[in-house]
């Protein structure tokens, strides 16, 4: 796959929440991109680092995470192809968390200068990036409610609902089944659960006939039931398609 393909991924992602004009799309597709491959479980940017570039997830699954005192990891967010999870590094220089790969991943580095020049010339592109970070903040709010208040089965169900909805929005799922390249310890780290607890509750969700999770693949068997358990309402993802359907 080449650079153009990955920049199309960026445009597709931005367009899930922001309409773009052809001219704006063309300029985004001309951004300079330096591709780099990472094995699974590697840091792309570490806490404390100062960078002069931001990274576009080209292929694979990337997460933000922090390690607490006793060595436990909290996964803070999951990032799919088309995301620029450190776009904020344009304006806040020092990383306050780690950005790492959960699968083998290809990342495209874009110099800050290039993004800055583009956003200064095209305010709607600046708004699109701004909107991305606002949607991200909305996702964080949902995760906070989940970790703080939802039961373990509800948290797991919510992660599945959110993941497949995001995958569908960028064209990587038909809404019924998608790749879910997360191990059970990784899901547990995202939900603030112990792995054994997570295994036990995931089994209950499977036995209730809501989903099938097998060899890195998630299949939804009962969407309504899963949404009910999760109390999932996709409004917080602010997807344009979903809004226009209403």
């Amino acid at each position: 796959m080449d650079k153009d393909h990955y920049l199309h991924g960026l445009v597709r992602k931005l367009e899930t929440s922001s309409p773009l004009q052809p001219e704006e799309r063309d300029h985004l597709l001309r951004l300079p991109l330096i591709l780099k491959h990472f094995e699974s479980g590697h840091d792309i940017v570490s806490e404390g680092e100062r960078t002069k570039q931001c990274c576009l997830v080209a292929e694979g699954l990337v997460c933000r995470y922090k390690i607490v005192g006793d060595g436990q990891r909290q996964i803070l967010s999951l990032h799919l192809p088309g995301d620029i999870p450190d776009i904020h590094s344009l304006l806040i220089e020092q990383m306050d968390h780690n950005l790492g790969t959960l699968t083998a991943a290809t990342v495209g580095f874009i110099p800050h200068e290039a993004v800055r020049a583009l956003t200064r010339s095209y305010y709607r592109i600046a708004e699109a990036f701004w909107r991305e970070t606002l949607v991200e903040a909305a996702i964080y709010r949902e995760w906070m409610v989940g970790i703080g208040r939802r039961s373990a089965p509800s948290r797991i169900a919510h992660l599945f609902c959110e993941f497949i909805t995001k995958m569908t929005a960028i064209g990587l799922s038909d809404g019924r089944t998608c790749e879910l390249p997360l191990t059970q310890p990784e899901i547990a780290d995202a939900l603030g659960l112990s792995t054994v607890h997570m295994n036990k509750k995931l089994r209950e969700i499977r036995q209730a006939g809501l989903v099938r999770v097998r060899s890195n693949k998630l299949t939804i068997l009962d969407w309504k039931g899963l949404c009910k358990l999760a109390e999932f309402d996709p409004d917080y993802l602010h997807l344009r398609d979903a809004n226009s359907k209403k």
Partner: protein
Amino acid sequence: MPRYFFHTRDGDHIEMDDEGTELPNDQAAKNAAKELLSGLNREKLPNGDHMELAVVVKDSAGAEIYEVTLHLDGH
């Protein structure tokens, strides 16, 4: 890694774990049992003033290697 099975007991209700979880050793399994118990406890409020939650850990040969119980008694 060896596989451990975490069966739970809530009063008279027993839930068997027939899939298990791979963990490095017995000590990790014991710690995981305690973590599971504290996680389950967080989700569950007793109906009355008494609750007994237990996790029983068995190895793949079916031998019990650990049991940890949480009692709640309100007076």
